[in-house]
């Protein structure tokens, strides 16, 4: 069978991108492309860099002519299509040639819109001498050539393109004035205040800005000498650049009888209205009433069209794009998404303005969700806000955290500004350059890059920066990784779906989960630990324990150290011990020459450097329960001395801490759980920065904070509830931990989970029982509590052959120094 013929009108970013997507899906077409510019395909966005002299012309080409040849694409450059014959399925070019098609894609893009100002054109000569549009490579070249020999430029249009043009022109001549008809700069994206602050920053760069200034005439007989504004003032100049906006190139489509409004009207498959075989993508397309002038929607459209045309997913549908932009406009960072101003009476608006530094931030919140954001001069919160906007995430109670990082990691720098050798991942020593290379090498998912480079695989604090760099390096081509939503990397399901499937099939062991839920039944080493924890939580005593599913720490109930030895931390509830206990620990440490004895951050004693084969003996001699200092589990409850001894204490924090630890000891979860109880708001036990922290306040009451952290990430917990008795603290603690265990992602600590779900929602479930599941949560937790067995009792009869046999190689290893 003959290959179907695919014809593309337009050789811009949309057309070429769609072809790339089609080829990537193995689409089998005889492809012909018509472009009216005489070049291969280039990145129009970079024209402002060419104008500014920071990018060479050759650097902006995306697909050179050999790409077309290599992929068997017939390219006709400098050829304009005059007409589409829909009935005969042929396109007619200006040069008289006729090309038949089976499928046709219109990707004609848009052109500069030139307002009807007297003097712009000279009869029979096109633009007046010295007047330029700013749209194509030819425009840019001509403008540079002319500007170099002249001194004063006026740019008409104070949007993104106008600002870029003004900044670029400063490279070529001494005086640039920006004339804008609206009341403030970038009025499509920014509100008046933001526009005014941007204006100040732009003026500092030496660009004069005139707003509320409608240009009524271009002056000059032979060449341009100035412009006249509506109020009668004139501005002298010898170059005029018009950057007043763009209009879709839809004339050919219209003349050929297609439905055209502001662009070619298309459906969710990018199909022109009423046309089975004609499609439109990019700036020339109008989808659900919207035309887009940015690159991200174009990528989305190209994917949908490619899925549809190649049959990969004939039902692929484009649902429109939520526009979020982050740009460096004339050297000033600007980001905008969604609404720029409140629209309804009950919309919440947050504004921060610091004109001196050129910083402006404004957010619009509706029903607790972010619906709009504008950032000028400081866009560090962009990635966070974009996620909140895009996914409708719950917002922090303390709204100021939306605008600023409070107690967060040190100030982030933008991905673009970082030096190539700057270290991004401080755990695994990965530089920005390595990340960028990996992306350019073809790995375009955040997880994929993290897997290959190991960046973000240590403490994880750099993940958001890694994400920013990958996004930046991929230039808007970041691919969504479906695995990002899976609970563990080897089973293709998010947590709720996975738990449902486990229940439906009654899967009680890790191997049965792989066999039943993974296509092909393939097991995955990196998924075992997460599944083991989940199954144990779900099935309690019914869980079928397969030891190979456990991480080494959980096989031998101790934390592996850098030299392959282990650390032993006995339980010391609430950090309270006795002389007898201390003596026993001391004797054991001495008898076995334990290389290091150290107090932990959780108020316990750590015996470090214990060989695996000695673990059972040491546990026997200590005769204390495990302190669980090795698992993704409930760790310890840190306390202060409370009311018994402290003259400030208003509640018995030590007794409550011990009671909590007694009840919830060893409970496994998606991440470790560190708790604290403190006897007064002086907070000596650091309860504000724990997964769950309890603070005694005057009047016999207790505050419960959740989602705090003071590790790689620092966060003050959110107040969950204030209760009247220790009994209520114990109940709510169990209920909160169970809700967390059932809903958090694997390795997601409460400091990430609580803000993701939102403290209001957690309070609804845990405190107010709005969903009616409190009793279930309590019962599930009680079952886990009842299933507790001290793992250090395993010493007498090992669970597996050779459980405590050394794996230590007999080679010299870096030793932990003995002090």
């Amino acid at each position: 069978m003959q290959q179907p013929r695919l014809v593309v009108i337009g050789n811009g970013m949309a057309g070429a991108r769609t072809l790339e997507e089609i080829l990537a899906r193995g689409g089998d077409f005889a492809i012909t492309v018509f472009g009216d510019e005489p070049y291969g395909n280039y990145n129009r966005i970079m024209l402002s860099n060419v104008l500014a002299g920071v990018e060479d012309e050759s650097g902006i080409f995306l697909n050179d002519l050999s790409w077309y040849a290599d992929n068997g694409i017939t390219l006709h450059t400098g050829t304009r299509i005059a007409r589409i014959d829909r009935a005969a399925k042929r396109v007619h070019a200006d040069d008289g040639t006729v090309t038949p098609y089976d499928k046709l894609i219109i990707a004609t893009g848009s052109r500069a819109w030139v307002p009807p100002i007297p003097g712009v054109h000279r009869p029979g000569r096109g633009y007046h001498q010295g007047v330029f549009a700013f749209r194509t490579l030819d425009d840019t070249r001509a403008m540079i050539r002319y500007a170099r020999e002249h001194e004063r430029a006026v740019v008409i249009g104070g949007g993104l393109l106008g600002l870029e043009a003004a900044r670029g022109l400063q490279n070529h001549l001494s005086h640039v004035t920006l004339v804008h008809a609206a009341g403030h700069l970038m009025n499509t994206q920014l509100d008046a205040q933001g526009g005014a602050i941007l204006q100040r920053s732009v003026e500092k760069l030496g660009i004069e800005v005139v707003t509320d200034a409608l240009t009524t005439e271009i002056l000059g007989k032979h060449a341009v000498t100035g412009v006249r504004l509506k109020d009668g003032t004139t501005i002298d100049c010898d170059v005029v650049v018009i950057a007043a906006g763009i209009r879709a190139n839809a004339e050919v489509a219209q003349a050929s009888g297609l439905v055209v409004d502001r662009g070619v009207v298309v459906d969710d498959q990018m199909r022109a209205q009423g046309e089975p075989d004609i499609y439109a993508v990019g700036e020339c397309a109008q989808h659900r009433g919207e035309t887009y002038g940015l690159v991200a929607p174009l990528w989305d459209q190209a994917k949908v069209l490619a899925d549809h045309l190649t049959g990969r997913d004939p039902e692929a549908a484009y649902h429109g794009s939520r526009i979020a932009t982050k740009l460096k406009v004339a050297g000033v960072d600007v980001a905008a998404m969604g609404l720029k101003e409140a629209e309804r009476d009950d919309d919440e608006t947050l504004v921060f303005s610091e004109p001196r530094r050129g910083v402006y931030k404004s957010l619009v919140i509706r029903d607790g969700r972010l619906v709009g954001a504008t950032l000028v001069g400081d866009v560090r919160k962009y990635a966070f806000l974009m996620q909140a906007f895009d996914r409708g995430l719950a917002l922090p109670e303390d709204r100021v955290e939306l605008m600023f990082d409070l107690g967060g990691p040190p100030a982030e720098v933008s991905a673009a500004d970082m030096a190539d050798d700057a270290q991004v991942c401080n755990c695994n020593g990965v530089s920005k350059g390595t990340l960028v290379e990996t992306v350019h090498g073809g790995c375009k998912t955040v997880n994929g890059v993290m897997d290959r480079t190991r960046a973000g695989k240590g403490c994880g604090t750099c993940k958001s920066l890694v994400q920013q760099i990958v996004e930046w390096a991929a230039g808007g081509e970041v691919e969504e990784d479906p695995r990002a939503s899976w609970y563990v990397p080897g089973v293709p399901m998010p947590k709720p779906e996975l738990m449902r499937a486990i229940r439906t099939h009654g899967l009680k062991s890790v191997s049965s989960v792989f066999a039943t839920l993974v296509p092909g039944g393939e097991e995955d080493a990196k998924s075992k630990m997460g599944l083991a924890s989940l199954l144990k939580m779900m099935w309690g005593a019914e869980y079928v324990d397969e030891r190979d599913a456990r991480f080494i720490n959980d096989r031998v109930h101790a934390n592996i150290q850098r030299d392959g030895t282990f650390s032993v931390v006995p339980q010391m509830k609430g950090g309270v011990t006795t002389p007898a206990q201390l003596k026993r620990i001391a004797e054991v440490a001495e008898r076995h020459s334990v290389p290091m004895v150290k107090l932990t951050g959780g108020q316990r004693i750590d015996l470090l450097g214990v060989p695996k084969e000695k673990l059972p003996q040491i546990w026997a001699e200590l005769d204390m329960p495990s302190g669980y200092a090795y698992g993704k589990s409930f760790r310890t409850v840190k306390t202060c001395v409370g009311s018994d001894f402290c003259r400030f204490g208003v509640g018995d924090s030590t007794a409550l801490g011990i009671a909590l630890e007694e009840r919830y000891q060893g409970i496994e979860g998606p991440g470790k759980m560190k708790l604290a109880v403190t006897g007064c708001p002086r907070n000596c036990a650091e309860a504000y920065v724990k997964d769950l922290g309890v603070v005694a306040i005057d009047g016999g009451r207790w505050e419960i904070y959740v989602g705090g952290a003071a590790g790689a990430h620092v966060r003050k917990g959110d107040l969950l509830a204030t209760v009247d008795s220790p009994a209520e603290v114990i109940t709510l603690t169990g209920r909160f931990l169970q809700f967390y265990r059932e809903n958090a992602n694997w390795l997601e600590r409460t400091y990430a989970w609580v803000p993701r779900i939102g403290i209001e929602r957690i309070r609804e479930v845990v405190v107010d029982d709005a969903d009616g599941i409190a009793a279930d949560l309590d019962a599930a937790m009680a079952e886990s509590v009842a299933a507790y067995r001290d793992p250090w009792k395993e010493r007498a009869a090992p669970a597996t052959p050779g459980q405590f046999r050394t794996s230590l190689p007999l080679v010299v290893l870096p030793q932990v120094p003995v002090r």
Partner: protein
Amino acid sequence: MTTRLGPVDQIPPGEGRTFAVDGDMVAVFRLRDGSLRALSAVCPHKGGPLADGQIDSKVVVCPLHLNAFDLTTGCSLSGLPGLTVYPVGVDDEGHIVIYSEVPA
């Protein structure tokens, strides 16, 4: 020449154990399908004990920094030097055997 390392059931299914073979430390893994794999026992990254790592049918993951190695080829999946692979099998009496040459 072959080296016998004792009964195969000293390695629980899905786990690994370290053995000394001719002065080398060898980690022997017993896959869940019953087959064996044998590799050098020391992670070339920071000397981690690979026999303490978790495995699936394809890779072992070092317990220290989660570097993964192909169980069959010894190749690193994260850019580290590879591991030596030892031909391994079970003899008629159910004993683990390391072959110095691949049996015909």
